[in-house]
């Protein structure tokens, strides 16, 4: 499945090309996929929240793809929880992609958010049979 539209929302790449933080939002069917690369912390989490809000535009599902993310802390988790709650009130489905086996995935497991945030292995799984 090829994203129909992909545009960088926020790019904080370092001059040497190492990604510090980058957001890319794309629409697949009625779902908005927000790809997150780099580190999500207190400084960048607000950007993530803005990107999710901005890309919503009547979508029925939001997928936050953290496959390329290298760091995630509690402020990122709090942001995701806020978004999930807000979207749930509007009836928008929410899921997070974070492959297991990495330190990043453990963050969800430690904070028992794997289920509340519908953390899955891949974007395909997130979009699911009804996506």
């Amino acid at each position: 499945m090829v994203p129909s539209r992909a545009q960088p929302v926020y790019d904080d790449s370092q001059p040497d090309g190492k990604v510090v933080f980058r957001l890319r939002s794309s629409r697949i069917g009625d779902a908005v996929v927000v790809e997150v690369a780099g580190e999500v912390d207190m400084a960048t989490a607000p950007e993530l929240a803005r990107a999710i809000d901005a890309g919503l535009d009547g979508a029925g599902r939001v997928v936050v793809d953290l496959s390329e993310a290298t760091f995630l802390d509690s402020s990122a988790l709090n942001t995701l929880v806020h978004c999930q709650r807000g979207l749930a009130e509007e009836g928008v489905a929410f899921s997070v992609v974070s492959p297991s086996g990495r330190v990043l995935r453990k963050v969800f497991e430690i904070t028992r958010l794997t289920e509340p945030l519908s953390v899955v292995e891949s974007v395909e799984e997130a979009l699911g049979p009804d996506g």
Partner: protein
Amino acid sequence: MRWIDLRRGRPPTDARAPAPIDVLQQGSESSRRRLLAGAAVAVVLLAAIAVALAWRQYNDAKSQAIDDQRARVATAGAIVDTFFAGEFGTLDAIANAPSIVGGSVPVMTSYFRRADPPGSVLFTGGIAWIDRSGAIQASSNPSRNPRVKVADRQYFRQVLATRAPYVSAGLFDRRTGRPAVVVAVPTFDAKGVLSGVLVGSILLSSVGRDGRSLALGSPDVKVIDRRGQLLLEGLEPVRNPELLRQVRKLGAGVLPSSKGFDGGNGHVVAFTSSKVPGWVTAIDRPRSSVFAAARRALMLELGSVLAGVLLVLGVLVYVTRRVRRTTETQNERARSWTGLTRALASANTPAEVGDALLASLSLAFTNAVAIVGIEDGGLMEVKAASRMLRARRVVESTPTLELAAGLGRERPTTIPLDRQPDLRDLHTRTGRGLRALHAVPISGPGGMPAGTITLLSTAARLEPSEWDLLRSFADQATHALERAWLFVHEHELALRLQRSLLPEYLPSREGASLAGRYLAGGDGVEVGGDWYAAVPRPDGIIHLCVGDVSGRGIGAATVMSRQRHTFEVYAHDLRSPAEIVRRMLRHADDAEMITIAVVSIDPYAGEVTYSCLGHPPPLLHDRETGEVVRLDGASAPPMGVAVPGDVLEATLPLPADATVVLYTDGLIERRGKNIDLAIDLLARLVALQPSPTPEALVAGVGDTIGHPDDDVALLVLVIQRARVSFDVEIPAEAQRLRRLRHRLHAWLAAHGVGFDDAAEIVLAVSEACNNAVEHAYADGGPGSIRVAVSIAESGTLRVVVEDGGTWRDAVPDDERGRGILLMEELMHSTDIETGLTGTRVTLERRLGADPPLAPEPATAGS
């Protein structure tokens, strides 16, 4: 301890320009030379006259020798003539004897035997009577031979024809074949009729050489007959008929230089004609033999002249040498005095004044051991010097040196050594060589005694001129000491000023030791423009800086001081060396030429970042690989020329075990030396030493290319990353945390913590920091966070995160809870203390143990 020995390596003063006194000496020297040359010329003239006289005498002797020859040949000729006259007389007497007149042959024969028996010296060839037919009728030795006809003989025919006596030319005896001369006279019978010819034969072998019958006095006498035969030499014909002709023509005389009769060159021929017609008597000798005596006399005379000249010259040289030796002593003293003036002019310390004095004294007084004592801080510094090495050893090996120097502190003194019990030893131990002590005081400021000049001399007393010289030495020393004390004072002042402008101490810490040195060049009286500085930032980064303001003196020092403080201010604020340098440019005047090197060490991230403006490249030594890298990848023109856009920055990984060396060009720059090679030399020295000190590097470079003649500032950092503990204080701002996490991760990696473990620790620390950031903002301003991480030997990692804020209650519990939960789950121990001054989170994790990550039911859902 700081660098005290600032004055090493000053070049010795080269005193080659002639002083007036030298010129005077040269004048007297040249007049002495003229005098000597005049004397030599006079001697040579006298010698020439003597030689001329000798030559004249030689010529006189030569003509004398020729006259001798003339006289001798006259004598020889007379002898020959007399001889033959005698023969004729004898023969005439015989011819008139009755036996002969009688004409009876037997009577004649017996008469002959009586008159001329065999062996007679009269007619060695015998006598004989020849009848008119030419047959020999009677002979003094008839038995020896049958009758011989001699009618063909010239003498026979001549006598018959002329009835006159006749002497033959040299001929060979018809009976014996021996060379002979025949004397013939006519005989007459009683009636007076020519009856025959009486002949007497003279054997030539018996004439001449043996001198028996014809003593001619010299083996050189030649008798030449009318046929040109040499009668005394076996009738040899004359080989030089030309000469014979000439001689015959002249009759008598001397040819002083002619060919000889034998044709040889260079003969003296004296000759005279004989009364025997056609005969010549001559003395023919080589000139060399004729003039031998004259020449011998000449040689003798010339030899005497030469010996005389040599003797006179020898005496002259001897006298001149004596004179020169005494004037040399004078000159030496004059030179030593001017030398002292020059040496003292560059003597900057009392010790140098003392050394200069000693050097000049040992030159001026070669017959003494010189001792100089200089008061220095209440102590007397005593040294001795002498050209008399043995005496000097004796003096130095006895405890009398100080004693001797102590005498004569008040006024000029002479003490005979054998009268002073303490010093008598010197007299005896030098074989009674040293006889007296002469001393003059050196006065200091206000007439206070400042030292003494002492001579232990072989002379019992000093000449007045020598006393004057000693006193003038002492006067010079007084002035030089005043200057030296002033200099030392100024020097200390300059040093203190310089030090006050440099950092009091350098911020060394565990695992990172810093050493900086400033070494003043020149005479050290002026402050220089080199500086160094090191600024440890709260975030753990160490900024190092070395700079060089061109010029010297207070102006340069002021600029230097300003630049150093500018650097320190910006170094606290800014992480990037290039940015620091750009800001410093704002404070630099266009007229000031400043070079600078800034090197920034991040021991946690493991990075070296640097920026240089017109400065020699700092060196980075990896002590594990031994590689030394020149930090020359970020260079720009010096301050005063560079604009901010020129300033570059480069970053290298920091080796785990590294040395960083920053220096100013005074360390490596020498006139005429290649700077590049000097930097290589420095790099080798850095690589050679396990922990190089600035002193060792300066000394090492100095040993190879000479001591620095300009200021040197040097900063050396020796860092072992594994020994540097993590201690970072940053502003409590959210965007700072990312870099903090990276640095911590790198630090953990450098300490052998695995990637996943490190990531978990970093996450826990980051959560603790999140709290601090929130607290800081809660108080309305950016406070700061301090993160200190250490690993105990037991393997327990301990993190302390502190801030100055209070726990924030505005955050919803579940959100706060997630951060705390993460910390608790990722670490073995989490402790949060909140006090009045701030919050302190202490996290612990046992490295290598099972990770604490195990969801427990008890905490689920909290």
